[in-house]
Each structure stands twice: as structure tokens, then as C-alpha cells.
């Protein structure tokens, strides 16, 4: 899937606290930030950016529930309907001894499901090559990016001014 390229104006900051102040300022000025990139998770950034809380744990709960039910019901079906065998004089439906496997399958489904969901919604996976703005973003630079595809000269100049004013060490344009 080839996407059309976007013109991106971005500023690189040296420190996460400078970045946080800049993002806060941008929100106050009602600037439309395309994305913020950082080499490690910056705490408090998601609140300032106004990102809603990730719902991945809800997905995890649902996958886990599916795991529990399928394991427990499957074992019940095998031992009461499909091929009932008496083990050690215990009842066919000996729920207690189904617990360990039910637990393991719950954890397995929840974990695998969440990880697959994570990579899918982030647009990531083996061999995926998402365009990056700067190689130093995974090293020591913090980046605020603006989409300037439809911005005129004066708008771009204002954004550049904003980035330098808030402490960006470098301001560049790149189409990704």
C-alpha cells in the first residue's frame, strides 16, 4: 500500500522537558501537531497532547476471556461428552483440575492477542518500513512534527518561528 507523501515541518529538541513546554505552548496556541517523536516514553506527554488512554488492556481482557472459556468448555466437552474416562475415581466433570490449563490458556490468549493487536493498530510488523523523519530521533532528539502539505508560506514561517522560539535546535522540512 503506497501512501501519498506528506510535507512535514519538524523541529528537533535536545531535552524532554523543553519538548514538554513546547507541546504545552503549541496546545495553548491551538497549533495542529501531526505527531511527537521521542527516543523513550516521555511521561506526561500523552496528557498534554490530549491522547486518550490506550484501550489495549480492554482488548486483552476480551482475549483472556475467550481463552478461559474455550479452554474450560473444551475440557468439559472432552471429559463429559466426547470421551468420558474416569481418572482416579474422580467425577467426569472435575472442574478443579481444569483450572491450571484454563489459567495458562487465558494468559496465552490475552498476551498473544494484545501483542498482535498492538502491532496491527500501530501499523507495524516484520519487514514494515515506516518512514522516519530523522535518524537521531531514536537516539537523543525529541521531535515535534507539523503537517504542512496545505500550509502557505506565512503559515510555515509562523510554525518555524514557533519551533525556534520554544527551543528547537534544528528545524527541517521533509516529505514522508
Amino acid at each position: 500500500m503506497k501512501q501519498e507523501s506528506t510535507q512535514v515541518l519538524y523541529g528537533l529538541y535536545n531535552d524532554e522537558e523543553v519538548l514538554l513546554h513546547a507541546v504545552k505552548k503549541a496546545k495553548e496556541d491551538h497549533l495542529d501537531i501531526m505527531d511527537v517523536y521521542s527516543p523513550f516514553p516521555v511521561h506526561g506527554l500523552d496528557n498534554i497532547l490530549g491522547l486518550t488512554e490506550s484501550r489495549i488492556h480492554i482488548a486483552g481482557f476480551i482475549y483472556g476471556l475467550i481463552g478461559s472459556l474455550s479452554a474450560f468448555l473444551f475440557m468439559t466437552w472432552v471429559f463429559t461428552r466426547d470421551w468420558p474416562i474416569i481418572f482416579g475415581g474422580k467425577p467426569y466433570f472435575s472442574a478443579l483440575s481444569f483450572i491450571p490449563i484454563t489459567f495458562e490458556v487465558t494468559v496465552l490468549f490475552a498476551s498473544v492477542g494484545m501483542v498482535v493487536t498492538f502491532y496491527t493498530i500501530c501499523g507495524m510488523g516484520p519487514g514494515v518500513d515506516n518512514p522516519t523523519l530523522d535518524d537521531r530521533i531514536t537516539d537523543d532528539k525529541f521531535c515535534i512534527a507539523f503537517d504542512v502539505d496545505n500550509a502557505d508560506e506565512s503559515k510555515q514561517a509562523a510554525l518555524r518561528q514557533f519551533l525556534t522560539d520554544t527551543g528547537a535546535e534544528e528545524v527541517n522540512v521533509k516529505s514522508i
Partner: protein
Amino acid sequence: MSAPISAIREPLITGSKTYHTITEDICGPTEKTPTTAWVIAFIVAVTGLALYVFSVTWTIWVGIGSWNLNRTINWGWDITNFVWWVGIGHAGTLISAILLLFRQKWRTGVNRAAEAMTIFAVMCAGQFPLIHMGRLWLGFFIFPYPNTRGPLWVNFNSPLLWDVFAISTYFTVSLLFWYTGLVPDFATVRDRAKGLRRKIYSYISFGWTGSAKHWQRWESLSLVLAGLATPLVLSVHTIVSFDFATSVIPGWHTTIFPPYFVAGAIFSGFAMVQTLMIMTRKVLKLEDYITLEHIDSMNKVILATGSIVGVAYLTELFIAWYSGYIYEQFAFYNRVMGPYFWSYIGMMGCNVISPQIFWSKKMRRSILVTFFMSIFINIGMWFERFVIIASTLARDYLPSSWSYYSPSWVEVCLFIGTLGLFSTLYLVFMRVAPVVAVAEIKGILKTGGDQYVGPNIKHDNAHKESTHH
């Protein structure tokens, strides 16, 4: 500003690092030609691996008869090794998951390598039940798949089957957790690389960009995976202990087994982490990230879990006497005074008595002492499993079938071989991946770096700190 910092906390990162020097220090070793120490270690490890391949081939070709197991003692070195390796695996998950939930920041220095150790240890563990089946090519029979024999299902009431589920789930979840942590760091390596190397790291870094939303989801995912891995790690060794505890053999049929096995697993796992970390930090020059503070913290865990294990040993003896049940009493008398008394002495000496040295802070912070102690503990924990398995089976209900077991050369080679397999995997990991979690270390720099906390704090930072409160 970052979280409040306690004045008594010691720095977790020394050497006044910046974000860039962290990247250089940790990703650097993957980019340089290997050192002589690494090459020598790798040759030794691959020799061990070759021995492993040979002895597995021998076992399968000749059959399980090539082992010295007999009708009385039908579990020997194989299951001892299995439990030993699984136990070692537990420290990785403990460090990465439980310490994450407890917000222990020192975990970031060692979690990556400890998780790698977990995965490799579980891989070594898994070999033993598989080859013990004898007919390895029918190994898939242990999974409940629709088959043409009825379908005839596996016995879901059997602890041995619970083990199949526990170990395979544990391996899968550990691998996913570890790899998800590695993805941002592989992206760091990718962005420093050129040519083919860049292509390879680009492939395995899954297109990571470092976007704020991705980081948010990544943190959320890590936290939930940690929450799942915590009960999982406790369940795995609990279920391994059920292999013994649900049988009706005196000496095995005890309710103390699950907590005692879990404590022992964490104990031996931390010992293995120490062995590996002390060598890794030296070879890769990571002393600034894996500091004496880390070694000290891990030695405290070793002291605590070692003492729990010691209490468990004594409790077992007491309960055997107190139960008034002669078979139980005999089983424990036999453990201490029977034909395998030497392994009981090894177990007690290495696991209970020797770790008491760590009450002294000076000893906890001595690299040499820690290294030798970690080897002692690994040996002691191997003895523990051998004591439980061999000494119990050697004296069963029927004195005419009492027996003695010592391993054949094939069994010894298999054990040495898995050490080779483990070392080979770990050495390759050291070469291709950042052995310390780069992104996580950067995240704790401002609360753990020695220019921000501790005695070497820079005054301008100290000032900045105070104005923010």
C-alpha cells in the same frame, strides 16, 4: 519535572551519561568486531553445543537405554536438569515483570539480559522432557489435536500435561514480552546502521518510529503483559512442583512444594543472572549501567529467597517427624543419611549456609564473592533437584527393588551440552542486540544518573531540582 528523588538513593547510572552516550555505549558493542574474549567464549560454547547435538543424536539412535535409568529410578539427571533450567528462567520474568509492577528502577539495567536468559533457559529445559519421551518424532502427541485415534484426547487432569501448557505459555509470553521491549532498541540500532545491516535491523524493528501514541500503547502493553506474566511465572513453577506433589510418593507428596519451588526458582535464577551480568558488564564494559548497586540489590534478593528455601528444607524435616507417618519419616531420614547424603550436604551448604555471607554489605558489593557465590548457588540448586528426585526414588516401598543410580556418559554430556546451547544463544544475543534496554535506561537517566542523584550531583542540577519542589 521528573519524579521526586530520595536523597538516600544511590545512582543507577554512573559516568555522567547523556542520551547520546547511552546509545553509543550500549549499541556500540553490536557494531564492532567481537573481542578476543567473546571469540574464545564462543568457540567453547559451540563445542558444548556440538556435544549436545551428538548426545541427543546418540540418545535417539540408541534409545533411552543409553541412560542409566532403571525401573526403580526412572527420573534422573534429565528431569533434574529440566527443573533446574526452568527454575533459572524464573529470574528474568521476576525482574522484568514483578519489579516493573513494584516500580523498582534498578530493573532497567538488567532486565533485557535477564529476559534473554529466561528464554534461553526455558529452551534448554524443554529439551529434556522431549528427549525423555524416547520417540521424539511422536512428541506432538502431547498436544490435544483432533486425531484419527478417536479422537483420543490427552489427560487434562494430569500435572504432566499442565506442564506442557505452562512451559509453552511461559516461553511464548516471555518471548513476546522480550521482543516488544527490543523493538524500539532495534530501531535505534537501525538508525545508526548503513547498507545491509540497516535492512536487517529495519526488518526486525517492525517499522518503529517513536511516535507518542505508539509509546503510550507500548507502555500500556508492557504493563499489562507484566501483570499477566507475574501470576504466570508463579504458576509455572507451581505446576512443575505438582509433577511431584500430586504423586503419592513419600517425600514428594507435600503441600509445601509450590511456594518452596517458586522461591528456589527465583533464587537460582538470580544466581544465574549474577553469573551472566558480572561477565557481561566486564566484557562489554557496561559497568556504568550494571553498577554495584544492581549487584547489591540482586544479592539481597538471593539472600531473601535463599533463606526462604532454607526454612522450607527445615520445615520439611520437621513436618516429616511431626506427621508421625513412618514412610514420610523414612523418606527424609533417607535424604539426609541415605546413599545420596553427599548431595544433601551439597544442597544445604550451597543454598542455605553459603548465602548467609550476604548479610554483610561488603560481601554483597564484592564482585569476586558474588561471582563465586552465584556458581555455588547454581550447583546447590542442581543438587536440590537431584536430592528430591533421585534420593526419593532410590528407596521406594519395596526394599527388594531399592537401587542406586549414577548417570551414564550420555546423560552427563547432555547436561554439559545444554550449557553449551545456552551459552551459544546468549553469546549471539550479546552480539546482535543491545544487552541493556536503551530506551528504558534513557527514561530513568534523570532520576538515576549520577549527575542528578547521589554524592556526585552537579550543583546547577541540584538547584534546579530544589526550585521545582
